[in-house]
């Protein structure tokens, strides 16, 4: 706000001085010119009266000649003063109006208001840099989940869209470049309420600058950045403390898992789907020959995955054709090239060009030759969604889908992300076991995921570990219903973290230790009831023994005496 004040003061220097001089001349002159009072004596107006007369004359209010009728000499002077003061006021008001229309001033004012409002947020919020396709969808998803948002977008037209989209609580938007450190600070990244920063700008270099700036300014902050190139990803990851998501590689890795162990992919999709949705059917991806249409960032990410899996592929692209192994053809997206790439012998077509019409065309052409070909299609623009859906591909790549999926996973339950990372390295049988366990314990709808932390600073956990004897505290106890212990909550434990050690699918009788963290999945009721073990002392003891332990010191002493 100080910037606004200083700009005001600086801009108004000249008009204000003009006004003071005009008033000084008029008032001074009027006080010097001799007048006649009620008794006919000659005496000038006092300075106070002169100021009074000039105040209403200069503002063209005009009360008349006070306190006595003026002499002609005084009238002459007042006439002169009227013109002088009107010029003075016109100049001042003109400057004020110019300033109000001045873009610099408006931007400064908007920035001041933004900073002031961000400072006033007293609830958890996320800072989102970049409001493109992915940004807009992620903003809506975070809003639905009940988070406030602070959005920074350099493009004024895009930023204006935040005002017309339906948000539960309207986000605070600033039109500015988040690469600037002062902009980042004004966004409130140092605020204790700031949960994290998500950099989804169009260019990798911008995201890199934002993430590094935010990391330096607020070291403990959770930062998620998108990097479309591997170079940017490696750069950011080496900087540390930043979660980097490359939508192309993420998709390619997922397809790779689908090739190797479909159950892992199935579990992953299920656990990160909206709660309640059925376990998705993952179509088995054929291991035959692949044909890639378009060899940009998307195509090359898939090709790298295929190389790792040892699968034969052919690709073509109108620009990119630098390939020693002659697997990459140069060609426009036309039928002959598709034939040259060997579409007749291919099992999979990846329509991955950055033009939706080309992808749709390639799909149609390929299906004409091989009606049962497995199609992976890329959707570039949200407007083409209906067209891409109509193509009925087996797998669909939508960058913003991947980004939202990954961002929410990282932001909402980081432990679920770690579990999935462990799972990817594990084998198919384990994933199948996890699916079976969740199905048996929770049901067929996609469960919620949360972390239970054995934090001994919480009254419930302190009681469980230190104020109790008898059998050790086990995972199974956390799955019992705290209102009726023989009943079981609809929960399943998926991972146990102890220090740096992670155990997938821990057994129910695993004894717990302080500071252990358990990843649970289950329904909303179970999540709410399970919190009681944390916040209410004695709940664990009651579940173990069926007896409510004494709460106060005296009763505890009494019980020990018995």
């Amino acid at each position, binding site marked *: 706000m100080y910037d606004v004040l*200083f*700009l005001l*003061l*600086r*801009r*108004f*220097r000249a008009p*204000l*001085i003009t006004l*003071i*001089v005009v*008033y*000084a001349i008029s*008032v*001074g002159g009027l*006080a*010097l010119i001799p007048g006649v009072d009620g008794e006919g004596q000659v005496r000038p107006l*006092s*300075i*106070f009266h002169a100021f009074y007369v000039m105040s209403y004359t200069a503002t063209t209010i005009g009360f008349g000649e006070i306190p006595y009728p003026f002499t002609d000499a005084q009238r002459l002077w007042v006439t002169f003063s009227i013109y002088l003061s009107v010029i003075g006021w016109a100049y001042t008001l003109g400057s004020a109006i110019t300033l109000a229309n001045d873009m610099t001033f408006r931007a400064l004012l908007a920035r001041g208001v933004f900073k002031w409002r961000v400072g006033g947020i007293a609830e958890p919020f996320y800072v989102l840099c970049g409001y493109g396709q992915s940004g807009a969808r992620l903003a809506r998803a975070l809003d639905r989940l009940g988070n406030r948002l602070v959005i920074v977008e350099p493009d004024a037209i895009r930023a204006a869209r935040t005002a017309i989209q339906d948000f539960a609580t309207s986000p605070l938007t600033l039109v500015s470049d988040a690469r600037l450190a002062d902009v980042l600070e004004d966004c409130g990244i140092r605020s204790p309420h700031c949960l994290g920063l998500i950099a989804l700008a169009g260019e990798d270099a911008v995201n890199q600058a934002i993430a590094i700036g935010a990391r330096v300014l607020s070291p403990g902050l959770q930062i998620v950045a998108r990097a479309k190139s591997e170079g940017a990803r490696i750069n950011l990851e080496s900087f540390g403390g930043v979660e980097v998501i490359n939508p192309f590689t993420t998709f390619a890795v997922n397809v790779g898992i689908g090739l190797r162990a479909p159950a892992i992919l199935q579990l992953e999709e299920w656990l990160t789907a909206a709660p309640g949705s059925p376990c998705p059917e993952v179509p088995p991806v054929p291991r035959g020959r692949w044909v890639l249409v378009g060899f940009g960032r998307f195509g090359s990410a898939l090709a790298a995955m295929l190389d790792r899996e040892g699968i034969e592929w052919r690709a073509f692209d109108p620009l990119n054709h630098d390939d020693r192994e002659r697997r990459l053809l140069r060609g426009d997206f036309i039928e002959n090239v598709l034939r040259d790439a060997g579409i007749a012998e291919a099992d999979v077509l990846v329509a991955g060009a950055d033009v939706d019409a080309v992808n749709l065309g390639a799909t149609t052409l390929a299906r004409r030759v091989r009606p049962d070909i497995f199609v992976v299609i890329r959707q570039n623009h949200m407007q083409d969604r209906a067209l891409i859906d109509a193509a009925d591909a087996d797998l669909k790549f939508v960058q913003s889908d991947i980004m939202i999926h990954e961002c929410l996973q990282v932001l909402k339950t980081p432990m679920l992300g770690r579990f999935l990372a462990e799972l990817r390295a594990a084998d198919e049988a384990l994933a199948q076991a996890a699916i079976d366990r969740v199905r048996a314990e929770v049901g067929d709808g996609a469960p919620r995921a949360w972390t239970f932390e054995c934090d001994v600073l919480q009254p419930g956990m302190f009681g469980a570990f230190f104020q109790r004897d008898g059998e050790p505290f086990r995972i199974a106890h956390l799955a019992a219903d705290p209102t009726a212990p023989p009943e079981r909550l609809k929960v399943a434990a998926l991972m146990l973290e102890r220090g740096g050690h992670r155990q997938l699918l821990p057994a129910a009788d695993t004894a717990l230790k302080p500071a252990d963290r358990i990843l649970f999945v289950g329904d909303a009721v179970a999540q709410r009831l399970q919190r009681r073990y944390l916040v209410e002392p004695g709940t664990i003891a009651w579940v173990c023994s069926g007896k409510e332990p004494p709460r106060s010191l005296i009763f505890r002493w009494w019980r020990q005496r018995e």
Partner: protein
Amino acid sequence: MNLEKVIFGFFIIFACTLNFGFFIGDIERVELHHPMELFAAVVVNLIATVLKFGDRTQLGATHLATSLVASFQLLAASMVWVWQLYVVRGPVDGHVISIVVSLSGGALLANLFSVILLLGETIRQGR
């Protein structure tokens, strides 16, 4: 020679000298303190204050503060005068003029600080 410096220095010193001119003289003798001189002091002080607007340095802030103090004190002095003449409707006697002059004395002190700051700045810059 910098014209801005000339104007700036002129108004600051002029505000101080006018203030001093009004202040000097026996504190209780009305005829030694002319209202026109007080008026001029108020006007020049206001101009000096506005000239200091928008300087973001630490010294600029102190400058502005001293000028604001001087302006307020002088305005208060003129208000006392006006009140006695037109609200109380009594003559401006020794008691009233001593209040007015002592208020302007406070303003003079603030104006002196202003001049000292100006000199200090000039000496420090050394060019």
